[in-house]
């Protein structure tokens, strides 16, 4: 958790993106609206224009009517035929309103060109066109002739040609003319008298209903376009303002949401660095972000719980590590050094060493199957059971018998333990050891090389509660060394998955095994590490080195009196005398003295009787006293015989079944606190001690 990297983020990218999207959408919206609306605006302007032009046409017709009426009243020319209102005709190629010749150039008729007035009134312009008669026009022509039937020509009473003649002017637009010819009416754009205009044509009919001409009212296209531009411009700004308002609102919302996301992000960043905020995350919303916050809070709680558990696991691992003795012994009698290098988390290996009494040092190494907390718990139990039973003074095999039985109780998980324990008698050098399925240790005897201390291994611990373990013995001499290890040593792997192996181990020890224990172990670990080349190891690596230095009780205070005797009953008296004299001189209490003499008598007699069958030999008796302890040692070169292995007589048998032999050795074992036997260099060495 603590190693989590600080996440590098661009905290503004989402906000910028939202802003850009809003902006783009706004531009798109404005453009679309503007384009579609401009067309409608134009249509509307055209419609407005049309209705106005319709009014204009009606006004013009009214004017004509009024003019006719006025003319009648004004001129008093009553005899002339009066046409009905709007009664247009063409006679002899000229246009008449009733009897009035339009555009005849006379003052009287001049005002019948009323259309010029229109500009002043509505801003429209107007023209009158006449339909070319079936027969060509002869009147007021421009002299060019060539009129075609169905053409509409503009009536321009005030228009003069170069010779001063009134002319009927310009053609109407051909396209328009065709439409008018077909439908009689046209609204729209057209070219009128050389100008592009928006206009309306209204037909003029004679009394027979024949179309004789048209009135055109129009306005410059410019006017419509200006009006359209003006309205569209207004609309544009209206849309821009509305869209901007919407943008501001959206942006405010987005900013608010993103700000909440930012809060959530910072909260998560804190968690990712292992700093759990005290308060739960509250984004002050009831929307989807609320769910996000809830989930983050639940996740935080779960993480806290995990953190707590992992903290406890770490504590468990520490407890386990501290359970292993780390104050190593370095004294005159022996040196012990050890370490466990856990592969991962909590492992199952352990080593142990402790004194079971003043003179006995126990060394233990074990490997619990499996990993993690179950293995660690089992390891703690196994370690305590072995140590407790060993410190009760039980024999090593019995320690394993009992520890095994207890470990089997309720071991549903099929965890098992391989273990090796040796108990070294520091006075005699006797090592009693027991093996429960563990790889045998290496031992170096007498300046030689290291070799495996092989013994028939027993069943692993915690597998079957009925297993009986066997112990073996061996005498270590000062300078001898014992190296215990777990298979993590020999099974350390390099990158190619090859194993460190037994040979490398033995070779290393043979070269460096004489160095100080701590140095040996560190050197070996370094060798394994260089072999593994940084490869992570799957198994714990555990090792222990015992350096036996000096027989306790032989240096310092222990003054040894030693004498050789012939191994014959005749010398018994001398031997007892020697013992009595030696012990009496050292103020041994009489009762103990008597017991010691009894032991001397029993052992000496035994040796005299059995050590040298049919021959002669000597027996050496050494006696020393130290710290209120008597130590005696018999050495002979006779046939190998270990009295400690002799079967004890059953003292509870009834008389008839009692054996008369074996009593002597039994007595000695009972009298002495400890009796040990070893065979070295062809010699039987029997050592015994008794405290007083």
């Amino acid at each position: 958790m603590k190693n989590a990297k600080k996440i590098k983020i661009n905290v503004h990218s989402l906000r910028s993106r939202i802003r850009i999207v809003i902006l783009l959408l706004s531009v798109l919206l404005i453009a679309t609206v503007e384009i579609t609306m401009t067309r409608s605006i134009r249509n509307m302007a055209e419609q407005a224009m049309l209705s106005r032009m319709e009014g204009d046409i009606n006004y013009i017709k009214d004017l004509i009517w009024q003019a006719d009426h006025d003319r009648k009243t004004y001129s008093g020319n009553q005899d002339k035929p009066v046409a009905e209102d709007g009664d247009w005709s063409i006679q002899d190629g000229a246009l008449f309103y009733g009897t009035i010749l339009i555009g005849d150039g006379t003052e009287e008729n001049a005002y019948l060109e009323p259309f010029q007035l229109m500009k002043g009134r509505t801003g429209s312009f107007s023209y009158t066109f006449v339909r070319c008669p079936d027969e060509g026009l002869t009147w007021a022509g421009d002299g060019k002739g060539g009129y075609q039937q169905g053409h509409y020509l503009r009536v321009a009473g005030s228009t003069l040609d170069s010779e001063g003649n009134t002319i009927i002017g310009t053609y109407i637009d051909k396209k328009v003319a065709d439409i008018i010819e077909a439908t009689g009416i046209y609204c729209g754009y057209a070219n009128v008298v050389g100008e592009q205009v928006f206009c309306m044509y209204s037909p003029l009919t004679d009394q027979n209903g024949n179309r004789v001409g048209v009135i055109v009212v129009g306005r410059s296209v410019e006017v419509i376009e200006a009006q359209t531009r003006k309205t569209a411009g207004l609309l544009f700004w209206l849309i821009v303002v509305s869209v901007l308002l919407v943008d501001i609102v959206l942006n405010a919302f987005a900013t608010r949401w993103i700000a909440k996301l930012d809060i959530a992000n910072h909260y998560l960043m804190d968690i990712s660095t292992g700093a759990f905020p005290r308060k739960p995350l509250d984004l002050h919303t009831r929307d989807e972000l609320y769910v996000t916050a809830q989930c983050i809070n639940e996740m935080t709680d779960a993480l806290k719980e995990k953190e707590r558990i992992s903290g406890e696991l770490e504590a468990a691992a520490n407890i386990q590590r501290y359970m292993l003795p780390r104050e190593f012994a370095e004294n005159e009698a022996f040196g012990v050094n050890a370490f466990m290098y856990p592969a991962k988390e909590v492992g199952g290996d352990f080593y142990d060493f402790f004194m079971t009494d003043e003179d006995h040092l126990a060394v233990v190494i074990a490997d619990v199957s499996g990993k993690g907390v179950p293995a660690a718990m089992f390891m703690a139990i196994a370690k305590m059971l072995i140590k407790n039973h060993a410190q009760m003074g039980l024999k090593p095999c019995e320690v394993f018998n009992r520890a095994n039985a207890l470990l089997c109780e309720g071991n549903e998980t099929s965890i098992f333990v391989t273990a090796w324990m040796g108990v070294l008698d520091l006075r005699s050098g006797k090592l009693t050891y027991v093996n429960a399925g563990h790889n045998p240790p290496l031992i170096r005897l007498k300046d030689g090389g290291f070799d495996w201390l092989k013994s028939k291994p027993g069943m692993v611990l915690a597998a079957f509660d009925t297993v009986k373990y066997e112990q073996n013995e061996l005498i270590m001499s000062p300078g001898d060394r014992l190296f215990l290890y777990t298979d993590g040593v020999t099974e350390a792997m390099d990158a190619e998955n090859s194993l460190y192996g037994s040979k490398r181990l033995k070779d290393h020890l043979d070269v460096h095994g004489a160095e100080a224990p701590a140095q040996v172990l560190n050197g070996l670990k370094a060798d394994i590490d260089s072999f593994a080349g940084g490869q992570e190891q799957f198994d714990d690596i555990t090792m222990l080195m015992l350096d036996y230095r000096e027989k306790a009780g032989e240096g310092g205070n222990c003054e040894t009196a030693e004498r050789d005797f012939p191994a014959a009953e005749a010398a018994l008296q001398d031997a007892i005398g020697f013992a009595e004299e030696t012990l009496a001189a050292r103020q041994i209490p009489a009762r103990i003295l008597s017991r010691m003499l009894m032991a001397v008598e029993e052992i000496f007699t035994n040796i005299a009787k059995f050590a040298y069958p049919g021959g002669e030999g000597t027996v050496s008796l050494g006696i020393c006293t130290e710290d209120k302890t008597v130590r005696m040692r018999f050495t002979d070169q006779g046939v190998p015989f270990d009295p400690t292995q002799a079967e004890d007589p059953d003292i509870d048998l009834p008389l008839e079944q009692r054996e008369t032999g074996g009593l002597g050795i039994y007595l000695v074992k009972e009298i002495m606190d400890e009796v040990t036997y070893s065979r070295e260099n062809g010699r039987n060495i029997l050592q015994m001690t008794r405290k007083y």
Partner: protein
Amino acid sequence: MEIRKETDGTVLRFTLSGRLDTLSAPELEKELNDPLIRTQELVFDMAGVDYISSAGLRIFLCTQKAVSGSGSMKLIRVNPDVKEIFDITGFSGIMDIEQ
């Protein structure tokens, strides 16, 4: 090792003194080797015995076996130190021992 032997009616009394060890045991053994011993009421006065080893124990065990069923055997006035040896070896359970 001093061995004094006296007959008192049906009782054959041995008064022992000194060390009953490997060296002296054969002496006592010789005294008890007589087949007639088997029918006797034997009493060993152990007041003077301050030391006994397995050789001595063996003699008492053999004698006890011999008299068993036909005679009897009793150790009296046994020194506590010696009595302890009888206790250790379980002899106290199969012999009549008085302190």
